[in-house]
């Protein structure tokens, strides 16, 4: 296992220490609870926004804490959802009297831990908590009888948009409604060229031959839906975008917000090349790109690969997207 780490058991807390050292002007890190907060206490009357999940997806979520985005991010062990204690601590801390929204990715572990935290927080402090569960991964067939779709790329876009809404003073109910809308409008699909290695496990989660790729992966180094022969970027782009377009109609007036996301080990030159292919398919399909992001935003350790997220926009969403944001991972307008 080739990683820039010390003891595998200390990876998360040591990385958080680095975040604290790198962003003393913007972040405050509770190393005991492994929670990243905005530097300044929450503004009274603002809805508190919390997310969290297993580590290994950086910059999500800790790098998305800051003005116009999250108020707190709870970091679990690598690929393991955080525990309720963390969410409870964060919930108490970012309760500015207007309630707290939990942004949860749809994984059994995340959902159960956030659920327990919400129950406990409600019982203990009387904080009003609402939750949104993100489930946007079209690689997974949706069904009442299964765990449903995974929460992947839309999470990043949702945190930006709902973060802006909370910043401009919308209520908890409005923020929650908006979050559900964003989740309903967003779809993602990912693929991997290589596996990744969980530090504590010490070896790759799966093996891929030199001429193979996994299509339909999530963000936890899990194998995908299909193992296929390695294909040119053009074909990979089609494999990612077509199932997204087949799942929802994105040809609205306001167009779409698109994210071409890297899984951690794929360099920017390839992401830009892939984005050219994705943009071409979208254009041919009549989908206008209103805004886009190209880069590493929701990753899977050092996995090589990428994912595409398309979010059907409207004027409200685009306006919130353009609102100022100041986090280590996403910054504009300030």
């Amino acid at each position, binding site marked *: 296992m080739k990683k820039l780490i010390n003891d595998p058991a200390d990876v998360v807390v040591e990385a958080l220490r680095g975040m604290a050292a790198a962003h003393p002007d913007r972040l405050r890190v509770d190393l005991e609870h492994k929670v990243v907060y905005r530097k300044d206490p929450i503004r009274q009357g603002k809805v508190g926004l919390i997310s969290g999940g297993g580590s290994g997806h950086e910059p999500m979520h800790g790098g998305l804490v800051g003005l116009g985005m999250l108020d707190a991010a709870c970091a679990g062990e690598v690929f*393991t959802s955080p*525990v309720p204690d963390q969410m409870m601590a964060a919930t108490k801390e970012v309760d500015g009297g207007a309630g707290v929204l939990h942004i949860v990715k749809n994984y059994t*572990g995340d959902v159960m*831990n956030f*659920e327990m935290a919400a129950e406990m927080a409600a019982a203990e402090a009387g904080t009003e908590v609402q939750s949104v569960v993100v489930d946007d991964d079209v690689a997974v067939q949706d069904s009442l*009888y299964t765990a449903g779709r995974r929460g992947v790329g839309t999470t990043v876009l949702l945190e930006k948009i709902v973060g802006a809404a909370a910043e401009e003073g919308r209520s908890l109910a409005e923020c929650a409604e908006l979050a559900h809308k964003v989740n309903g409008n967003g779809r993602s699909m990912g693929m991997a060229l290589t596996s990744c290695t969980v530090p*504590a*496990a010490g*070896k790759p989660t799966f093996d891929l031959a030199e001429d193979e790729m996994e299509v339909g992966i999530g963000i936890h180094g899990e194998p995908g839906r299909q193992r296929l022969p390695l294909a040119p970027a053009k074909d990979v782009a089609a494999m990612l975008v077509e199932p997204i377009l087949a799942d929802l109609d994105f040809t609205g007036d306001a167009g779409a917000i698109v994210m071409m996301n890297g899984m951690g080990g794929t360099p920017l030159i390839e992401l830009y090349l892939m984005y050219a292919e994705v943009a071409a398919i979208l254009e041919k399909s009549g989908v206008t790109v209103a805004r886009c992001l190209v880069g590493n935003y929701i990753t899977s350790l050092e996995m090589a690969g990428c994912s595409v997220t398309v979010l059907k926009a409207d004027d409200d969403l685009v306006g919130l997207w353009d609102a100022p944001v100041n986090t280590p991972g996403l910054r504009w307008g300030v």
Partner: protein
Amino acid sequence: MANLQAFTSWIADYAATVTEQADYLTDLDRAIGDADHGSNMRRGMTRAAELAGAEEFTGIDTYLKKVGMILVSNVGGASGPLYGTFFLRMAGAFAEVEDAGVEEVGKGLRAGVEGILARGKAEVGDKTMYDAWAPALEAFDTAAGSGSDLAGALAAAAEAAAKGRDETEGLVARKGRASYLGERSRGHIDPGATSSTLLLESAARTLA
């Protein structure tokens, strides 16, 4: 009959077991999950054995409650809330029980498994730990009903759990992380069903 001491041994024995089997459990999770079930269980059970071992308890119930809390607070993932809830609910069955016999342990297991069901909402055949627990409970009750003592009932439960665990191999997952694999989840044993079977085997060794 199992007293507080026996329950403490159970937790210590299970902590040692999952520590020893951590790599195996992680390997199972690598095939259809995210390669962390072994480290999750090791982290949680080591803490539980240590922390709860360092305190004095007045009863089985407060002890098991503490174990559950430690798991909830230290594991995360799917297994943290599931095993945590299992012990928290189980604890409730031992209020004022100093020496637990086949009846009390049976109640405790049932309460615990109901907790797993309440949290995870799995059904038999979903390829989860519940596929070990459901037949185990049934076997326990059947044994107890036909006069088995605690040792016999736990042995029957462990045996049934192992069978349920083995049968997960043929299943397509509908719950948990493995469900994302669809058909590809078939042909692999479920990690949680495996750690659950280990927990019952450990109980059979220590509680009677």
